[in-house]
């Protein structure tokens, strides 16, 4: 989230798309309700009329997988009706930048496409640069090669008729949404966009979010109270686990992993030169990287050995993300796996294949509160023949969240502390101690080993106590970082250095623990410090800033665009930025100083990117149909995102629209959580929501002779499941490109363990991912339904 939960009350309009917070983030709705009471509007765009839709001012249905068409229409509407915040656009985005000659777009493809490799040569999309390396601009926005004019041209194709025929959204609903949300372009108004996995779990997921960014920048909504782009996280600490680098291509704090396939990454110097931009906040990257290396390799990290840079693993040229990982497992390329509270046999895409893959491991370690479907994948009840599965399985009982202490970071980036309420149940242990003791045991096994493979691990500093219990305070302080010259904790990442005299295990969190005894995640002063930002409650990374890019809520001179949406402003007498929030900006950099208007400070040129030449499938979001779609693409002859990786063969079968004419999507219910292991193992929640169901429209039910509560079979190219039919008015058939298309939806919480069981929806979903993130396309695939008897 750029903003935070409490801040939602300040919005004039919340566009909720690809999310259903009333059911899946129920308490968030407290603040949306408050926004409504304050006169704000709520818009719900969803294939299904959800409980969020029921309390919205406007509901617009859209066919799963057509968000870019929907949003492209809004971009066109905003530009053509001049419903943009022009001064903001000219100064805080790359709208006036000139795009160099290489860029072109024809029939669904941008210039530089390599059909055989399914990749683009992104250098073709470069921005024009002057002799000084600075961007060439036209602040009048009139030059046809400005980003602004190219944007206008690109989305001129997204006319109301085409958009409506693709999305299945009635034209009047499109207009209602466009008009209402674009009203937030007025100074004094702010609109927010709220989204979740309904946005990201598509082959175009990243570009769906990019479309939000374009809209929010055109309307001048980034940085404002009640504005921003707000991803609602589904897990209590998926924000933190991402911040801490638990994805193959990121180290902590979003530092790119060095890769063997990038020649410059062979040395620290080369890596830093390659990855560090000349301007923008990331120009400080060397300080973050060297401080991380000092945290990890301590005295073994010296200037002479590139601060231990060579100890870090460098992945090869493959992709190592979830789908690829399971493909490697399926192909018997992996020996062992650690699972930290995760249940892919229910939650993974094409879950039947993920379960099969587990049987190809030599060993599996599952750390969990429960015997999950994944930990028990070898059992007869899982449909397996145990005698044929040679995987050794270690199931370690983990403590519940209140049986240990530690911090978690919510969607708002608020790092809140959880104190220990009770000793762990039975012999369960905190994950912290399990990881710590495992590390100590491995250190012991490698002790004295002088081989080349032992040295990187032996060089790893591990000083969190010598006993089986980990000293969490030492871990917290290592994350914050120290000044090695004084031995004191660092006040924040502004104090980090690239010379090896500072440490920080995760630079974006540096500052949460600035002095002995002052772990700010434990802050519990709930006084409203102004603007409902609660600056003394917990700690928000970075540096307790509650609204990111808040410099953009002030004009070029540092005055708030409006008093209604004021958050920080330049105080010429004190010579600093002041206001309700901590400035997400250099606090003493005057608006008149060089860089003083660079509100989007993380980017090289200090502006937001309407045009993003870094994306894998093109600088502007373009509509493509999902991997499995019932209709051809209306916008071009390119059906599928041209940059996605297609996994062929048995690992990912593709269904045709002839055999599987119905669109399907997955979703969640309030009473269950993710794969259900945390909720189907509880009595009350199991009783409230005890059955796997598939929600279908009255029209489809009639067509198929299905009645409410009938047992039905849902099939896709990957498998079949049985579930109860839930016939509702919440789904309505879509009229798409002249034909009637049905969509069904189902929860993905069920499996064969727990108090209540049911078939697993992910047996149906495909193994195909977004072109940038490889997030699987769970939210739009094809199926068929029939009565079970």
């Amino acid at each position, binding site marked *: 989230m750029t903003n935070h*939960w409490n801040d939602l009350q300040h919005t004039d309009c919340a566009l909720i798309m690809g999310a259903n917070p009333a059911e899946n983030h129920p*308490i968030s709705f407290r603040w949306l309700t408050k926004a409504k009471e304050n006169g704000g509007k709520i818009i719900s765009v969803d294939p299904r009329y959800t409980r969020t839709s029921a309390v919205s001012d406007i509901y617009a249905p859209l066919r799963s997988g057509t968000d870019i068409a929907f949003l492209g229409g809004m971009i066109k509407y905003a530009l053509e009706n001049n419903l943009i915040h022009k001064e903001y656009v000219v100064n805080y985005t790359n709208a006036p930048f000139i795009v160099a000659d290489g860029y072109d777009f024809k029939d669904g493809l941008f210039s530089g496409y390599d059909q055989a490799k399914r990749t683009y040569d992104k250098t073709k999309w470069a921005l024009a640069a002057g002799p000084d390396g600075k961007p060439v601009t036209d602040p009048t926005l009139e030059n046809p090669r400005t980003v602004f004019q190219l944007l206008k041209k690109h989305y001129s194709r997204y006319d109301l008729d085409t958009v409506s025929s693709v999305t299945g959204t009635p034209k009047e609903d499109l207009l209602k949404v466009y008009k209402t949300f674009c009203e937030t372009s007025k100074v004094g108004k702010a609109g927010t966009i709220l989204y979740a996995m309904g946005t990201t779990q598509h082959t175009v997921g990243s570009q769906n979010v990019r479309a939000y960014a374009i809209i929010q920048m055109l309307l001048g909504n980034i940085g404002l109270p009640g504005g921003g782009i707000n991803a609602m*996280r*589904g897990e*209590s*600490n998926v*924000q933190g686990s991402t911040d801490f*680098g*638990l994805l193959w291509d990121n*180290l*902590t704090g979003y530092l790119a992993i060095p890769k*063997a396939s990038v020649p410059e990454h062979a040395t620290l110097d080369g890596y830093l030169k390659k990855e560090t931009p000349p301007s923008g906040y990331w120009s400080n990257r060397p300080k973050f990287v060297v401080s991380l290396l000092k945290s*990890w390799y301590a005295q073994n990290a010296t200037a002479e050995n590139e601060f231990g840079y060579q100890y870090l693993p*460098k992945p*090869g040229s493959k992709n*190592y993300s979830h789908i690829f990982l399971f493909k490697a*497992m399926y192909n018997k*390329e*992996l*020996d062992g*796996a650690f699972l*930290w*509270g*995760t249940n*892919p046999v229910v939650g993974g*895409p094409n879950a039947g294949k993920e379960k099969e893959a587990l049987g190809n491991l030599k*060993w599996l370690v599952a750390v969990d*509160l*429960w*015997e999950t479907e994944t930990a028990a994948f070898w059992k007869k009840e899982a449909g397996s023949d*145990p*005698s044929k599965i040679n995987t050794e399985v*270690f199931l370690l009982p983990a403590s*519940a969240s*209140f049986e240990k202490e530690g911090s978690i970071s919510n*969607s*708002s980036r608020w790092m*809140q502390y*959880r104190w220990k*309420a*009770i000793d762990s149940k039975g*012999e369960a242990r*905190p994950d912290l101690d399990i*990881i*710590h003791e495992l590390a100590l045991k491995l250190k012991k096994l*490698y002790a004295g080993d002088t081989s080349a493979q032992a040295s990187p*691990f032996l060089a790893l500093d591990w000083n969190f106590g010598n006993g089986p219990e*980990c000293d969490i305070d030492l*871990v917290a302080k290592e*994350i914050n970082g120290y000044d090695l010259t004084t031995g004191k904790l660092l006040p924040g990442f502004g104090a980090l250095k690239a010379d090896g005299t500072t440490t920080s295990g995760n630079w974006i969190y540096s500052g949460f623990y600035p002095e002995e005894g002052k772990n700010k995640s434990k802050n519990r002063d709930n006084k409203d410090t102004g603007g409902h930002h609660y600056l003394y409650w917990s700690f928000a990374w970075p540096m307790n800033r509650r609204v990111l890019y808040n410099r953009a809520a002030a004009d070029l001179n540092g005055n708030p665009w409006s008093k209604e949406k004021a958050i920080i402003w330049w105080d010429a007498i004190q010579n600093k930025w002041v206001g309700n929030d901590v400035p997400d900006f250099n606090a003493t950099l005057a608006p008149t100083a060089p860089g003083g208007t660079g509100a989007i400070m993380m980017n090289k040129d200090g502006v937001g990117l309407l045009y993003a030449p870094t994306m894998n499938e093109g600088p502007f979001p373009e509509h493509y149909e999902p991997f499995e779609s019932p209709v051809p693409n209306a916008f071009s002859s390119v059906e599928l995102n041209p940059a996605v990786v297609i996994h062929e063969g048995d690992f990912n079968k593709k269904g045709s629209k002839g055999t599987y004419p119905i669109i399907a999507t997955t979703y969640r219910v*309030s009473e*269950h*959580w993710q794969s259900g292991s945390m909720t189907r193992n*509880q*009595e*009350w929640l*199991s*009783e409230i929501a005890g059955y796997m169901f598939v929600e279908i429209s009255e029209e489809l039910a009639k067509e198929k002779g299905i009645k409410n509560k009938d047992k039905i079979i849902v099939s896709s190219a990957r498998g079949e499941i049985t579930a109860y039919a839930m016939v509702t008015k919440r789904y309505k058939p879509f009229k798409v490109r002249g034909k009637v298309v049905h969509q069904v939806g189902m929860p993905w919480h069920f499996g*064969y363990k727990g*108090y209540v069981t049911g078939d697993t929806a992910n047996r149906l979903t495909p193994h195909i991912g977004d072109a940038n993130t490889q997030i699987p396309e769970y939210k739009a695939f094809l199926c068929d339904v029939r009565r079970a008897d």
Partner: protein
Amino acid sequence: MVEMNLNRRQFLKLSGATAATLAIVELGFNEQKAYAKSKEFKIAKATVTPTICCFCGVGCGILVHTKDNTVVYTEGDPDNPINEGKLCSKGTTLRQLYTSEKRMTKPLYRAPGSDKWEEKDWEWMLDTIAKRTKESRDKSFIVSENGVTVNRTEKIASLGGAALDNEETYLVSKLMRGLGVVYLEHQARI
């Protein structure tokens, strides 16, 4: 598909609701009085510890009441500005993460080809896991590739972490990268 095989009575037994029902009967169906009394019973002399909900990413505050080495009650934390004491259905039932009979309380081991779990002690489990990790790592470790130092193993994967604390995710990150693991993923993608 497996049917839900518990009847209402079994649920009551499992959830301890039977006891609550009896208490209400004894108090003679005065709902308000019964409510006040049951609340007093449950949390009298309990220790109260603040926590944050372990489910979605909203981050609601919850107060955990413990007494006699069990969790007797949980409620929304009125001081937490995000939820101001309010909770959804999942946050409300947090207590059952402790009381559920389905909780794993002992380390379990499954040998290759076996059809059952065996109870093992922690020491044996962690020693054996460390040994397996080292074996897989050592036989697959790539020190350099085309003249570039790469120090990685492609034989070991680590998945998950979105339910862990920050400090725990930091240790997973540090240990796994320290070992050279490159198949490192968690639930952000799924």
